[in-house]
C-alpha cells in the first residue's frame, strides 16, 4: 500500500492539476509541495519497510514494484530533491506563469521516476521510463511560445526515445529467450544470443537517457526549460535513470564479456570529454549541464566495473549537489537576468547566501576534500583501477578538468566588481539551499563506511581536483569551436540522420503520389480508355446494327400502316384483293 501511494500519489495529483488547470492556479504550489512532503514521508516508510506489490497488466507480465537497498536510496533521494525543487519554484515562479501546468508536469515527472526505480520487471520500467521522457518534453518546452524552446523539447524527447527503443528490444529478446515475466533479476539468466540482445538494448536505452556519448547533446538543449526543471532533470530524475538502470542491471552486464568494458569506457570517455566541454562554456547553466554528463559518466563507469555501491553513492551525492547548483544558478538568473558567466561577475559577493551555498556545491562537484563527491567519485575510480589502469588514468584526467570548470565558474562569481543596484532574491526560493548544501557536503561522510577507499588514491584525486580549481580560478575566455559546441554532435546528427530521413520522407511521399498512386490512376485511366475505345469502335458498329434494325422495322411499320385508311370501301376492296390472292395461291399450290 505504501508503495502504491508513493508512486500513485504524485501521478494522481499531477494529473489532477493538469486536468483542472484554471481552478487550481492559485493552490497549485501548495498542492505540489504538500504532495512532495507526503512523498518524502512515504519514501522513508518504504525505505524502512521494503514493501513489494504487483498487479496484473498483460497475461504473464504484471506491473511489479518493490523496494530493495538501491531502490530505497533512490526513492528517498528523488522525493527529497522534488520537495526542495518545488519549494524553490514556489518562491521563484512569477504569478502569471502557468502554475498548474508546471506543478502537474513536475509531479508526473517525479512519479514516473519513482516507478522507474522501483520497477521489478521490464514492462513496468519501460512504461515509467517513457512517460518520464514525455514529461521532460513538456517541461523543457514549458515556455512554448518561443519556437526554439519547443524545438529543444522535441530534440530531447526524440533523442531519448531513440535510446528507449533499446528497451523494447530488450523486452522482446528477453521474452524470446524465455524470461517469461521479464523480471529484471532474471534477465542475466537469458540464454545465448538473446542475452546479448537484451544487454545491447538496455545499454542503448541507459546511455540515451543519461546523455552519455554520443547522445550528450540533448542535455544541452534541455537547458531551455525553467531552472527548477533543470534542477530536477539533472539530479535525481531522467539522466539519473540511465545510471540507475545500469547499476540495477550490473549482474546482467557482467554476464556478457563485452558489456562491462563497453559501458566503462563510454562512461569514462564521457566523463573526460564533457568535462572538457564544460570548461569551454560561457553560460553557467551550460557549464552545469556538461558537468552533469561528465559526473554521470562516473556512475556509468562504476556500473561497468561492478562498483554498484560506489556508483549509487555518486548518484546520491551528485543529486544533492547538482540540484543545489541549478537552483543557485536559477536564483541568479531571476535576480540578475543573466546566466552568462561574464555578466555574473561578483554575483556571489552580492548574494552571500547564494554565493556560499553555490560554492559548497561547486567544490563538492569538483571533488575537493572533504566534500561528498570527493569520496564517492574516488570509490568509483578505485574500482576502475582494479579493472584497468587506463580507465583510472582517464578518470583522473576528468577529475582535473572537473576542478577546472568549477574553478573557472567560481572565479567569475567571486570576482570583485563595483556594487550595482540589486533585486532581492525571494526568501522562499532560498530556503532549500542550505539544506542541499549540507547534504552536498556531508553525505559523503555518511556513505563512506560503505565504500572501499584507499588513502593514497583519495589524496591523489583530492590534490588533482584542488589543483584544477586553483589553476582555473583566473581562466576567463570561453571557446566557441568544437568544445564550446558540445563536440558538434547535434549538427552532425542533423546532417547524418535527420536531414537524410526528411529527404527520404519527401522522396517517398513523391514516389507514393507519382508511382504508387500513379499506377492506380494509370490502371483506372486504362480502364476508361478501353471503355472509350469500345465505345468508339465496337459500340458504334453495334449501334449501327441496332439502328438499322430499328429503321427497318420503322419502314415496315410505315408499310403496314398504309392500308389502315379507316374508309370502309377501301377495306372491302382490300378484302376482295386479298381473297383473290388467296384463291390464286390455293390453286397454284394444289
Amino acid at each position, binding site marked *: 500500500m505504501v508503495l502504491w501511494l508513493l508512486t500513485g500519489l504524485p501521478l494522481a495529483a499531477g494529473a489532477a492539476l493538469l486536468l483542472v488547470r484554471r481552478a487550481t492556479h492559485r493552490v497549485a504550489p501548495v498542492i505540489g509541495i504538500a504532495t512532495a512532503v507526503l512523498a518524502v514521508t512515504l519514501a522513508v516508510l518504504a525505505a524502512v519497510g521494503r514493501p513489494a506489490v504487483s498487479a496484473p497488466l498483460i497475461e504473464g507480465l504484471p506491473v511489479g514494484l518493490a523496494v530493495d537497498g538501491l531502490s530505497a536510496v533512490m526513492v528517498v533521494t528523488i522525493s527529497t530533491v522534488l520537495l526542495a525543487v518545488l519549494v524553490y519554484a514556489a518562491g521563484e515562479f512569477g504569478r502569471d506563469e502557468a502554475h498548474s501546468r508546471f506543478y502537474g508536469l513536475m509531479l508526473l515527472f517525479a512519479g514516473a521516476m519513482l516507478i522507474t526505480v522501483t520497477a521489478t520487471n521490464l514492462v513496468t520500467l519501460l512504461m515509467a521510463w517513457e512517460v518520464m521522457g514525455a514529461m521532460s518534453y513538456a517541461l523543457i518546452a514549458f515556455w512554448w511560445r518561443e519556437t526554439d524552446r519547443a524545438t529543444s523539447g*522535441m530534440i530531447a524527447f526524440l533523442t531519448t526515445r531513440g535510446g528507449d527503443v533499446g528497451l523494447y528490444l530488450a523486452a522482446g529478446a528477453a521474452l524470446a529467450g524465455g524470461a517469461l515475466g521479464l523480471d529484471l533479476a532474471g534477465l542475466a539468466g537469458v540464454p545465448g544470443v538473446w542475452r546479448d540482445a537484451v544487454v545491447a538494448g538496455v545499454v542503448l536505452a541507459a546511455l540515451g537517457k543519461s546523455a552519455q556519448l554520443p547522445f550528450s547533446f540533448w542535455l544541452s538543449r534541455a537547458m531551455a526549460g525553467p531552472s527548477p526543471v533543470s534542477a530536477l532533470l539533472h539530479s535525481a530524475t531522467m539522466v539519473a535513470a540511465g545510471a540507475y538502470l545500469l547499476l540495477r542491471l550490473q549482474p546482467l552486464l557482467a554476464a556478457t564479456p563485452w558489456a562491462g568494458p563497453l559501458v566503462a569506457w563510454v562512461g569514462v570517455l564521457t566523463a573526460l570529454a564533457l568535462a572538457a566541454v564544460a570548461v569551454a562554456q560561457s553560460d553557467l547553466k551550460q557549464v552545469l549541464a556538461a558537468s552533469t554528463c561528465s559526473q554521470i559518466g562516473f556512475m556509468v563507469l562504476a556500473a561497468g566495473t561492478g562498483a554498484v555501491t560506489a556508483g549509487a553513492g555518486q548518484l546520491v551525492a551528485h543529486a544533492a549537489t547538482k540540484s543545489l547548483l541549478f537552483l543557485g544558478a536559477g536564483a541568479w538568473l531571476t535576480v540578475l537576468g543573466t546566466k552568462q558567466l561574464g555578466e555574473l561577475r561578483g554575483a556571489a559577493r552580492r548574494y552571500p547566501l547564494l554565493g556560499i551555498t553555490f560554492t559548497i556545491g561547486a567544490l563538492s562537484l569538483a571533488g575537493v576534500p572533504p566534500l561528498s563527491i570527493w569520496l564517492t567519485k574516488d570509490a568509483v575510480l578505485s574500482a576502475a583501477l582494479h579493472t584497468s589502469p587506463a580507465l583510472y588514468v582517464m578518470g583522473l584526467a576528468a577529475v582535473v578538468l572537473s576542478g577546472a570548470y568549477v574553478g573557472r565558474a567560481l572565479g567569475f562569481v567571486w570576482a570583485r566588481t563595483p556594487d550595482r543596484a540589486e533585486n532581492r532574491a525571494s526568501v522562499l526560493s532560498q530556503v532549500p539551499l542550505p539544506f542541499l548544501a549540507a547534504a552536498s557536503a556531508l553525505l559523503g561522510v555518511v556513505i563512506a563506511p560503505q565504500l572501499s577507499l584507499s588513502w593514497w588514491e583519495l589524496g591523489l584525486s583530492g590534490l588533482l581536483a584542488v589543483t584544477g580549481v586553483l589553476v582555473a580560478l583566473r581562466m576567463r575566455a570561453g571557446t566557441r569551436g568544437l568544445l564550446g559546441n558540445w563536440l558538434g554532435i547535434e549538427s552532425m546528427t542533423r546532417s547524418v540522420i535527420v536531414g537524410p*530521413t526528411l529527404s527520404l520522407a519527401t522522396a517517398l511521399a513523391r514516389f507514393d503520389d507519382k508511382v504508387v498512386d500513379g499506377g*492506380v490512376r494509370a490502371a483506372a485511366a486504362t480502364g476508361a480508355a478501353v471503355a472509350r475505345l469500345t465505345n468508339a469502335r465496337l459500340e458504334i458498329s453495334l449501334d449501327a446494327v441496332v439502328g438499322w434494325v430499328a429503321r427497318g422495322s420503322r419502314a415496315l411499320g410505315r408499310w403496314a400502316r398504309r392500308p389502315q385508311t379507316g374508309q370502309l370501301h377501301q377495306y372491302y376492296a382490300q378484302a376482295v384483293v386479298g381473297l383473290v390472292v388467296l384463291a390464286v395461291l390455293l390453286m397454284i399450290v394444289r
Partner: protein
Amino acid sequence: MLSAVVFLPVAVAVVLLAVPRTSDRLVRWLWIAATAIDLALVVGLWIGYSPGPGGFAYEVNVKWIPSISSGYHLGVDGLSLPLVALTAVLFLACAVYSFRDSDRLRSYAALFLFLQTVCLGLFVALDLILFFVFFDLSIVGMYFVIAGWGHRNAAKAALKFFLYTFLGSLALLLGFIGLYLAATPHTFDIVELARQAPLTGTGFAGAAVLIALGIGFAIKTPTVPFHTWLPPAHTEAPAAGSAILAGVLLKMGTYGFVRIMMPVLPDTWRRYAIVFVFVGVVSVIYGALVSLAQRDFKRMIAYTSVNHMGYILLAVGAAGIVASSTAQAREIAVTGAVTQMVSHGLITGALFLLSGVLYQRGQTYEMDSYGGLAGTAPRFAGLTALAAFASLGLPGFSGFIAEFQIFTGSLGSAPVSTVVAFLGILVTAALFLRAFQKIFLGPYRAPTDRVGDITVVEGVAIVPLIAAAVVIGIFPRFLLEVIEPASRIVVTLVGR
C-alpha cells in the same frame, strides 16, 4: 439479442426516413438516443459475456440460403466483442460530434445509422456470405458519406474509394467461393470452415485462395502498396466520416486476417507468414516516412493509419512463424494485434474529430497556416497533445499496450523485421511532435481572426475516446481478459 444490437440502428434509420418532416432537433436526439441505446446493449453483452465451448457467445444460427448452405450465423468472441464495442462507442461519438450539423441532417443520420448496422453486422457475422454482404454495404454507405458531405474534391475521392475497395471485395468473393468449393460438404460457415481447414496441404489452391483473400483484406486495411485510396478519401470526407472510416472500416480488413484467413487457412498461412511480416514492416516504415513529409494535418493522420495497421500485419504474420517462437509469444502478438485495432480506432477516431475541429475553425488542414493555437485554444491543444502522444505509443495509453505486445510477441519469430519496425515508433514520435509544434506552439498564426477553443459538444464527443484510450492504457485487464482466450484459440488453430 445480437440481432437486436445489429439491426436497431437501421430500424431507427428507416423510421427517420419514413416519418415526413421531422425537425433537425428531433433527428439529432433520435440519432444520439439510438446510438446510446445500442452502446448500452453492447455493454450488456459485455457484462453477460460467457463464451460457450466453441468460443462464441450469443450465437444465432438459422438457415438463410440453404441451397448454398449459407446461414444467418452470428456470434461474438474475444476477437469480435472488442470491435463491436469500439463500433458502438465511435458511432455514438460521431452522433454527438454532429450535433451542430444541419446539412441534410436526416439523410446524414440515416446513413450513419445504416453504416452502424453494417459494421456491427460484419464483426458478428460467422458466415462468409453474410460477412461479404456487410463488407460490400459498408463500401456503399461510406461512398455516400464522402460523396454527399465531403469537401471540394469529394466526388472524385469517393469514386476512387468505392472502385478500389470494391475491387478488393471482388477478390474476397473469389476467395470465399474457393473456400466454399474446397469444403466438404460445401459451406460458407466460418466456424465449420475453420474446423475443416479445407485447403490444408493443397499447395496451389491454398496459395491462390490466400492471395485472393490477402489482396481483398490488404486493400481494405490498407497496406502498402494498396493504400493510395486512403489519403484522398480521408482528406475529402467529413470529420465524422473519417473517424468511422479509419476507426471502424479499416478494422474490417485486419479483422478478416484473424477471423478468416488464419483459422481457415492455417497451413498456407504458416507457409507464407513471412510475406505478411514483410508487408507489415514495409507499411510501418513507409507509412511513417510518407506521413512525416505531409503538410496537410488530416492527410498526415491518414498515413499514420497505414503505419499503425502495419504493426497488426507484422504481429499476425509473426504469429504464423511457428518454428522459432513459443506459443506464449505468439499469443501475445495476436492479442497485441487485436488490442491495436481497438486502440487505433479510439485514438485515430479522436484525431480525426480533432482535425475536424481544426478545419471548422480555419477552413484548411494546411499545418503551415497555423501556429501558437495553444494560446487561444488551450483545451484543444491539450486534447490534441493527448491524442498525439497516445498515437505515438506512449505508455499510459492503449497504443502502448498494443504495440508493446506486438513487439515483444513478434521479436522471437521475426527478429530483423521487428527491429526495423521499432524505427516506426521513432518516426511517428517525430511527425506528431512536429505537427503539434507547428499548429499549437510558437507565435500565433491562423487563417481566421481568432481560433476558439473546443466547444462543449466537441468535448463530449472527443474526450470519452481519449479517456477510453487512457483506461485501456492503465487498466487493460478488462479488455485483455476478453481477447486473450480468443487469441489462444487462433494461435492453436494456426499451429495445427
